[in-house]
């Protein structure tokens, strides 16, 4: 009999624990963002989430709890969100994923009355392809893909365009992206083809290009590029402009990292959205608005080293000074025709057939 009690107690304990995950008395906000993509209080910076909680409690006199989770890639986030595995109130995916989610009716239109700070967003970021009516998204950061190279090893005369990443002189010293979209992107830009083609022949041509490059590669990497470039372990790699400055900060003595934009290249925007599963839309909008506020926006731009579409940020003298002249000119190149360039060269959502096709080609690249 007593065994029964133990057994039941054990089972009950389990179900109780799995049942009462968190109490719902305070207002809860669930945020889903890229890893390491928000100012987190390191090096005496602004701890965005903690500051938001503090600010909210003062402003509204209510308790709040922010659950801040991270994802590794757009696709990873989509796989979890679209199956209903998880639900969040605010997500920060990239442009092409926003287009896809909007098309699949996974996003809620924003109520801009709750986001007055939206006026701070630069006009260049209005009406872009992924959200033509500016209904679903508020841009968080943007950037341009460039090529980083070690000038102690690479002849600066060779450092032009995408050809550098295919230059046989530097065999074994080149890094390629370790995800299909970006890797095929480099080949497409090199061949001056559209990165959004629905024509299999285009992808085949890029596949051939990647196969030519394959023997020249040091490896196919993502975040490892930081350590590989800083230590001089590899000499050439394409990555996001802001990250070049992070690397510069830690480069070894015998390494001299340089950076340039090949033409054409990739433009991308990561933007804040509210997915359909959102449980507290008003709170989500309050949070998005807060992220556009002076302190939060500047702190995040400084932390990520990515360009901000927020006027408050790039006109702030203190921010400009912290970044330095070099960084400002690289991160914020002249913007006259940004929308046109962006709409032409940014990744767009591809149909499932094309995605499957690229995925197969990518597996072929990988197994060789």
């Amino acid at each position: 009999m007593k065994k029964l009690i133990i057994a039941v107690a054990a089972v009950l304990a389990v179900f109780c624990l799995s049942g009462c995950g968190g109490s719902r008395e305070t207002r809860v906000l669930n945020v889903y963002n890229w890893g390491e993509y928000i100012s987190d209080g390191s090096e005496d910076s602004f701890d965005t989430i903690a500051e938001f909680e503090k600010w909210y409690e003062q402003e509204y006199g209510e308790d709040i709890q922010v659950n801040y989770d991270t994802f590794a890639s757009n696709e990873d986030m989509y796989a979890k969100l679209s199956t209903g595995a998880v639900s969040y109130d605010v997500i920060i995916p990239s442009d092409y994923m926003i287009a896809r989610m909007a098309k699949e009716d996974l996003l809620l239109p924003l109520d801009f009355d709750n986001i007055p700070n939206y006026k701070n967003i630069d006009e260049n970021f209005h009406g872009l392809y992924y959200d033509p009516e500016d209904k679903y998204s508020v841009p968080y950061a943007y950037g341009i893909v460039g090529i980083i190279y070690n000038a102690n090893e690479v002849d600066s005369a060779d450092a032009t365009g995408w050809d550098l990443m295919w230059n046989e002189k530097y065999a074994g010293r080149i890094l390629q992206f370790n995800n299909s979209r970006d890797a095929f992107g480099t080949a497409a830009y090199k061949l001056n083809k559209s990165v959004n083609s629905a024509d299999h022949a285009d992808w085949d041509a890029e596949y051939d290009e990647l196969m030519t490059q394959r023997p020249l590669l040091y490896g196919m990497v993502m975040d490892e590029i930081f350590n590989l470039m800083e230590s001089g372990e590899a000499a050439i790699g394409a990555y996001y402009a802001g990250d070049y400055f992070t690397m510069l900060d830690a480069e070894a003595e015998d390494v001299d990292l340089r950076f340039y934009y090949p033409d054409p290249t990739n433009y991308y925007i990561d933007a804040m959205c509210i997915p359909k599963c959102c449980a507290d839309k008003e709170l989500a909008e309050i949070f998005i608005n807060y992220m556009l506020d002076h302190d939060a926006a500047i702190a995040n731009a400084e932390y990520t080293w990515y360009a901000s579409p927020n006027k408050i940020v790039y006109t702030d003298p203190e921010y400009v000074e912290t970044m330095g002249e070099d960084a400002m000119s690289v991160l914020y190149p002249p913007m006259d025709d940004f929308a046109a360039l962006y709409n032409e060269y940014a990744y767009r959502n591809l149909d499932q057939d094309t995605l499957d096709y690229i995925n197969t080609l990518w597996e072929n690249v990988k197994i060789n």
Partner: protein
Amino acid sequence: MKPVERGRRNRHAGSFRIELLPYSLWSLLFIVVPLFFVAYYAFTNNSFGFTTENITKFFTATSQVDGAEVHTYLLIFARSLKLAVISTVICFILGYPIAYIMATAGEKAQKIMLVLIMIPMWMNFLIRTYAWMTILQDTGILNSLLGFIGLGPLHIIGTETAVIIGMVYDYLPYMVLPVYSIMAKMDYKLIEAARDLGCNNFAVLKRVIFPLSLPGVLSGITMVLIPSISTFYISQKLGSGKFFLIGDAIEGQFVANNLHFAAAIAFILMIVLLICMAIMKHFTNKAVYGGGRK
């Protein structure tokens, strides 16, 4: 692992056992049922209609490697198996002697070594793998040390060797611990007896120690082989992304939102492994109990 029943008097023989209830339910719900979900997803398409397309795709998809046509997933599977088997063999070669040394050491030394083996497992596996990158790089610690004594440099990172080192490192404790736990219980009088009867060291090892430790070796092999065949993090980091193993394929399909094909690969892998394990178990059972049991 299976006990030898000794016609023991049993008070409750046949009666219902309440202490088994939670685990019985739990195992049914969270071990058995999920496997059917893998099968279910493997044999359905995106709209959950029955299809064998995913399974067929695994066996028929082809691609070009070095100018020759190969079966994509069969090749990936074969490569994963190869690396996993090599890693397992190395783990055995390194782990078995250590388990023996531990088992025959003094009690205090045993305890210390046991904890030393477990300490790295408490420091996150991703972080440990990251640290190996720093060691194995061309400009890394190992090559600096080699350069210091006038050797090298060795190019290891991004090669098969690097992936194998990563696997051996991460899964070595899984070989040592089960072998050790069997050896610690061994009756060392048997060894003395064998020596007294004129066996040399090698004969003692071959005829007494190894057969007795076989169950531990078997579970050690299982515990190393299984995770190393399915890893995707080690191949990404230490293989510099140039290795594509079966774990990478499953994860890649999951991320590419082809959940059903991911399930199909998982299903096939699962079936193959279950068959292998059953066969292995059958033969070791024979080897362990075959002659000895009355």
